[in-house]
């Protein structure tokens, strides 16, 4: 059974960063790989996926989703986060130009707002970021941009502050987050691990007094288990860790899933997420804040 270090070696040796279903490198898995390696102190290894993201960056500063698909560009958010975390860890400004261009693009683009509707529970007038151009703002891309921009020292920008308001607004009344809707035609929707974990990561460290945040943490603690799929387990652990908590058996469960071949071999995307979630909590906080590791 491979040790954590051996899993890290595998991630460090990767030359392609893929989802399970993709044959080509994609931006999101590369960004998570860079963040996971930095979080485990493997900073030089993290430079490789970060450099690949820099090569993928387009003239306007955005980073498309994969080497063949320049659109959509929500992955720009995670590239900013990876570059900023790496530069902070190395105490250098290697990616500063990439970050600046990506930030300009990010602040110039936004999801579409819509007039309030009694049929929809969330505040449709709040502006965050969308998955694809000219569509509504959604929870996960908004959280990714909040994380990226805050790590790159833009946490006070009005767009980031509105993004945080949007994320809080999208939490479900009893805690947890759906993919983005809260109540539709009077019916509250289902919470899910992944969006809840991502939302909580983005809200960590903010001075917020909303009971749904605590309820969301409770939801993750209540619902997480060792049999969960890699991404959901990882984001659940990351969401709790971001708020300086720890799921008691987290590392044991993460290692179990790292070694579990039932679902077939892990893609770099899942490997990176599991390893990031298994990183020491203090390092996760430093990465989220953009501080030196």
């Amino acid at each position, binding site marked *: 059974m491979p040790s954590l270090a051996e899993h890290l070696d595998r991630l460090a040796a990767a030359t392609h960063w893929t989802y399970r279903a993709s044959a080509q490198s994609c931006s999101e898995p590369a960004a998570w790989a860079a963040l996971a390696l930095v979080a485990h102190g493997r900073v030089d290894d993290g430079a490789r996926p970060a450099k690949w993201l820099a090569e993928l960056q387009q003239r306007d500063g955005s980073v498309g989703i*994969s080497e063949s698909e320049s659109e959509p560009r929500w992955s720009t958010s995670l590239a900013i986060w990876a570059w900023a975390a790496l530069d902070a860890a190395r105490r250098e400004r290697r990616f500063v130009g990439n970050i600046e261009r990506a930030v300009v693009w990010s602040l110039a683009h936004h999801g579409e707002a819509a007039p309030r509707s009694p049929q929809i529970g969330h505040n449709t007038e709040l502006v965050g970021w969308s998955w694809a151009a000219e569509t509504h703002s959604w929870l996960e891309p908004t959280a990714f941009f909040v994380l990226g921009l805050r790590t790159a020292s833009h946490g006070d920008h009005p767009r980031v502050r509105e993004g945080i308001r949007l994320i809080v607004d999208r939490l479900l009344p009893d805690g947890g987050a759906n993919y983005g809707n809260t109540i*539709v035609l009077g019916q509250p929707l289902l919470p899910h*691990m992944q969006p809840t974990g991502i939302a909580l990561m983005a809200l960590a460290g903010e001075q917020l007094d909303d009971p749904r945040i605590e309820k969301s943490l409770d939801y993750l603690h209540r619902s997480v288990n060792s049999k969960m799929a890699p991404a959901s387990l990882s984001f659940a652990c990351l969401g709790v860790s971001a708020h300086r908590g720890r799921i008691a058996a987290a590392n044991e469960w993460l290692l179990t899933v790292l070694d579990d071949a039932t679902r077939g071999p892990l893609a770099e995307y899942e490997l990176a997420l599991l390893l990031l979630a298994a990183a020491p909590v203090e390092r996760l906080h430093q990465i989220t804040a953009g501080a030196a590791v």
Partner: protein
Amino acid sequence: MEDSHMRSDGGVTRRSMLLAGGAVAGIAGLVGIKRALRPHASVFTARGQRYDADLTKTIQDGLTACGLNPAELRGKRVLLKPNLVEPSKAIPHMTTHPAVIVAAADVFRGYGADVTVGEAPGHVRDTLMALDESGVGEALRDGGIRFADLNYEEVAWRPNLGRRSKLEGLYLPRSVVEADLVVSMPKLKTHHWVGVTASMKNLYGVLPGIKYGWPKNVLHHNGIPETVVDIAATLPRTMAIVDGIDCMEGDGPIMGSCKHMGLILVGSNLAAVDSTVARIMGIEPSRVCYLALAANRLGPVDEGLIEERGEAWRSVKSPFHLLDQEHLQRLRADRGGSLFS
């Protein structure tokens, strides 16, 4: 001067009557010809079905009744597309039951086809979690059936053959582009925006989230009915096998209640299948916006153009509860009563 056809009092002259009569006869003839040229399709309905019984015989009977020649599928790639939109162990009637998927896979493998099950869950990014929660992942592993995560596969652009929305083309995942036959395998459900979701709306789930988002908001912004028709028109050859055993009524497609119907429907024309589904649910199909758009373009919606095989829809009809919303209540075939929740 009096018009040769129109009297000054607004009446119609004899000559006009004759001309008009000729025109009416001509129009009637054209309508007759046009009607004869409209697509006809067969829809097979089986009642008394159960998840713990052998469903392969039912599906085989349905495919045969709808004119499928098994020999033509030998060596062909068949993609089975269930509905795993937002699976939850607590709401099993939201998603296509694993037993129906495995039975269909067995049937097509028995015909010598190369079978893949593929889905791009519309609301959840963690596809493995969707497979776990729905029970489909375990069933596919046990059955040795390949799964394609359509949310993250490489994509290819194809021109929009439906042209109902303003989208010039659609990005389709590799497994969809390469398929010889795409079998839509929806759960029979109400839908809180469009009334009914079955084989056509289920095809939203072949488009990749990585291009269209979670939810696939690009489609919403281009019109749900229009894009439902566009996708169905742009895909390779399609068929439908509907899980109508434990269905969803009320606040579908996610939060509704379970309604047991015990049905399996099979058809080679998605518009015909969905129209029949709607009738069974007590919904007038011509009032369902995407079926109205699809009528006589993608297939027949008129009852007279659909050949019923197996059970007649009237014999299994059981109206579904719809939310008490005007946009839904207007879809009901029979006004009155208390068919809302």
